[in-house]
């Protein structure tokens, strides 16, 4: 086992190194220059992201417990990009003096969650998977309680940690049954030993519920809105994009590689839950006033659409899901970016506060509109392509009814996205949010998001690359 083989787990190693570096910096850095730690870690992650795109050998480590392949690499890279964006977006927020003490903690925790996700995605064995998923969750709980002096933040923290503990308990219970019936926890072996035994089905259902909790699929979604609302905006955006994306990735991998035998069952499961998720998410989103809560529910319904890509179990499906997550990262982070910028500048987070925003801050309004249209799937922005491919993937397996439900749901979602647009462009307000100029980091992040939203759709090469890497059952 030469040192070179460790290059296979390059992502994780680099991230751990980064985490350590940040820790060291925290210790030895000049206390009054703490704020520059954030710049330091942004740069670090940037470098790691770039390195991540370098070609790397596929293979497995630890006797197949850790697997690395093109698909998993592209997933990791996508996550890296997302986290990088989140980092840049939180730059301004961290400069506030109530956070000045906790900058390095912030980055440390986020990086460690990222490590967890990377392990989770590379898992070839349920043990790695479990460690990864917990590593990706527990720090987030700490982070959502990050605002030490806000009631809501604390509430969000406790709700997240406890309910995630419960969910992982259920998940583990399912795993234990799978273990009991198959006698192994290796993905490949489980797949071979898996039959249609009802105990195994039960185990699968429990496992699925645990994952569904992470992706916040109805009826396992109830924590989402509260946690999103209570957490700091940056954490919310991280939760809504990165955690969800990672969970979707691993769920997809496991469904495709471990449970192909009971495909019929999990197709039914997804069929039911996706319809529930889209509809309930939309119905709740309609009435929201707080933008974070609003985006929380919209992200729930988005999860419902994403499930349409999974249900087919086909190569196109996997490709469209990965692609959609990429698009979704850009769109959602774009929307959150605007919310963050405004809440940093004014502390306002309600839709009514945005009345007449276009008059004062046209650029922010335009970016918001673009992002929302992309979420709603309006051409020519990337979201349209993403949704179209998802629906195509479902239709390829003949789930036309499901597609019909989905497209009808998109109308509801368009309705509430348009409500925000209406607030910004049409509604008049006597005291609109005053004109302000956001600093470089925010504009940089938003710029990347807009570029992503616009380019990802038209540049078919991106989708083609993803599709060539992805596989079906």
């Amino acid at each position, binding site marked *: 086992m030469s040192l070179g083989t460790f290059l296979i787990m390059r992502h994780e190693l680099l991230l751990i190194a980064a985490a350590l570096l940040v820790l060291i910096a925290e210790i030895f850095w000049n206390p009054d220059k703490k704020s520059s730690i954030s710049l330091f870690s942004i740069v670090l992650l940037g470098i790691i992201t770039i390195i991540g795109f370098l070609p790397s050998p596929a293979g497995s480590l630890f006797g197949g417990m850790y697997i690395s392949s093109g698909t998993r690499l592209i997933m990791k890279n996508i996550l890296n990009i997302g986290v990088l964006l989140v980092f840049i977006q939180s730059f301004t927020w961290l400069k506030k003096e109530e956070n000045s003490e906790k900058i390095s903690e912030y980055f440390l925790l986020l990086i460690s969650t990222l490590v967890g996700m990377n392990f989770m995605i590379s898992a070839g064995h349920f043990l790695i998977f479990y460690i990864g998923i917990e590593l990706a969750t527990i720090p987030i709980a700490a982070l959502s309680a990050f605002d030490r002096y806000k009631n809501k933040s604390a509430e969000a923290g406790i709700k997240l940690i406890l309910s995630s503990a419960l969910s992982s308990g259920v998940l583990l219970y399912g795993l234990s049954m799978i273990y009991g019936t198959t006698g192994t926890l290796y993905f490949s072996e489980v797949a071979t030993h898996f039959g249609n035994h009802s105990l195994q089905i039960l185990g699968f259902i429990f496992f699925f519920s645990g994952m569904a909790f992470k992706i916040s699929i109805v009826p396992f979604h109830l924590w989402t809105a509260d946690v999103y609302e209570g957490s700091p905006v940056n954490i919310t955006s991280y939760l809504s994009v990165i955690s969800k994306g990672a969970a979707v990735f691993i769920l997809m991998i496991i469904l495709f590689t471990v449970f192909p035998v009971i495909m019929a069952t999990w197709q039914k*499961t997804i069929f039911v839950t996706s319809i529930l998720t889209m509809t309930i998410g939309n119905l709740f989103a309609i009435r929201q006033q707080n933008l974070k809560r609003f985006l929380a529910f919209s992200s729930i319904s988005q999860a419902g659409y994403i499930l349409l890509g999974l249900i087919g179990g086909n190569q196109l499906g996997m490709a469209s899901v990965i692609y959609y997550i990429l698009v979704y990262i850009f769109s959602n982070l774009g929307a959150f970016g605007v919310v963050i910028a405004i809440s940093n500048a004014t502390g306002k987070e309600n839709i009514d506060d945005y009345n007449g925003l276009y008059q004062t801050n046209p650029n922010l309004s335009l970016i918001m509109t673009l992002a929302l249209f992309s979420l709603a799937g309006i051409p020519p922005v990337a979201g349209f392509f993403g949704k179209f491919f998802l629906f195509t993937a479902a239709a390829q397996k003949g789930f036309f009814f499901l597609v019909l439900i989905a497209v009808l749901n998109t109308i509801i979602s368009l309705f509430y996205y348009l409500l925000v647009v209406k607030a910004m462009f049409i509604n008049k307000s006597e005291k609109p949010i005053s004109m302000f100029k956001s600093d470089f980091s925010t504009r940089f992040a938003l710029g990347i998001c807009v570029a992503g939203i616009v380019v990802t759709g038209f540049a078919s090469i991106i989708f083609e690359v993803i599709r060539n890497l992805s596989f079906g059952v």
Partner: protein
Amino acid sequence: MINFNYTIWIFLLPFLMFLFLGLAGHKYFPRLSGILGTCGLAVITVLSYITAYKYFFTSEKVDGAYQKIIAFNFTWLQFTDKLHIDIGALLDPISVMMLIVITTVSLMVHIYSLGYMKGEKGFERFFSFLSLFSFSMLGLVLATNIFQMYIFWELVGVSSFLLIGFYYQKPSAVRASKKAFIVTRFADLGFLIGILILSFNTKTFDFITLTNPTGPAIAQGSGIAFLGLSVMTWSMIFVFMGGVGKSAMFPFHIWLPDAMEGPTPVSALIHAATMVVAGVYLVARMFPIYALSAPVALNVVAYVGAFSSLFAAVIACTQTDIKRVLAYSTMSQIGYMMLALGVAGYGGHEGLGYMASMFHLFTHAMFKALLFLGAGAIIHAVHSNYMTEMGGLRKYLPITHITFLIACLTIAGIPPFSGFFSKDEILAAAFHSNKILFAVEYAVAGLTAFYMFRLYFSVFWGKDINYHQTPHEAPATMTIPLIVLAVGCLVSGFIPFNKLVTSDGKILESEIELMIAIPSVLIGLLGIGIAYLMYVKESAIPDKLAATFKYGYKWAYNKFYIDELYLFVTKKIIFRYISDPVAWFDRHVVDATMNGIAGITQGVSFRIRGLQSGQLQKYAFVFITGAIMLAILFIYLWK
């Protein structure tokens, strides 16, 4: 074979004149436009006289029958390979005859209008509309196919609409024009449906193919039956519906009296001489089909004509507005023509009615135009339409008086005026085919004489009214047309129509039948006498009569309340009981459903918000139950 290509100018000239006057007139030469229009029409008149001469006297006949000549023809719109709208000119006896009528009367009216409309606002607009009308009317009569006829049929409709509503600030005029257009439009709907049925069954629009007595159209016409009648009959009845509307036959006559709101020259040209006889012309044009393939439809024509003539004559006896009296007499005379067509047959001596109808159309154009123009002169002098405000005008308006008298004698059918000959032919035709109709027409002849002379006497004789400014004779531009037309009334009776215009183009031997002619003259004289007694002798008879036949008189005076009936149907039924409910339905049912869907969505989203209670343990409960539900569902229920 003579070259008739120049006839295309008979189309183009008035159209160009219309565009020219309409677009540039009001800016550059408002005064001159009248002269221009008149000159343009003079040219056309000359052209049509040349055409008539060449057609009747130099074109060669085939076994004694005038041929149908296609002067020019080009495809305007291709529907299918068989069905296509052409624009062209078809020359045959009736179309050439109509050319003469239209251009002559129209020229007279143009000249007359130069004086009558002098100083009116929109002088040039008036003449451009007149040109538009001439264009459409000529296009109508020269049509080579039924669809071209329909096109120009619509165009005369709209130009009549524009001219009736010429005084567009006068509400009554606006109302009248609207009424005229919509009523005729409704009738044209029938025409269009007729065309559709006809073309579907015969796969052609072309008149020559359609009316060829041995052609396929007529041959297969009586084939397929629908609700008891042959398809061809249905289509002919529908087509005739269009004619009924245009020619103001019962029950679509209601627009004609109101149309008198337009300037008097317009009434003379459109609503007396030319446009209103389009219906007659239409039936004459399709005559072979009617006669050979749809006899039922032909009977409909006859009875509608007869009833309308009687109906109108009765009403005419009670009206006091002179233009309305003339309008009703027009309706009644056209009823004559329709009847004559209705009782006619195709070819041989059967075709007498056809010839008579065309003959009467010709003479009627002359004397009715004359009557209207005369009436115009009177109104011009007195500034009123009502007989009650007139009397003893003969010394003020000598020329008008004489010409008017001639016209009245003509319409009353007194020899040697033209009306005598044409009406006599009609009566003869009716007598030979259907005694009842003959009786009706005989009575109508008397009525006609009566109400015309009632009009004449009470305007020119009778009590002398002191006018606040003494009426004076009209200018020369107005009197010359009167004189010309009066001469027309005298001579046109001696035109040998039986040699020129017959159903099959061959010569038709017919002479005055004394045993019909003499009584008709007598009853005419009788009518005149009664009128003399009642309106010259200052007697109280009319009032007594009106008193005795109180209800009859009241009904007749109110035109038997047909207008009110229509008003009821349109206002009440269409507006209140159809379109308002439709609008309501659209707002409160269809639209409400769409909004309802949105409302339901919102409502549901409000109902289920309890799910998000904020209680951690409730969330956990839902989580666990959800998991267990899924497990149960997929392990036991939906394996």
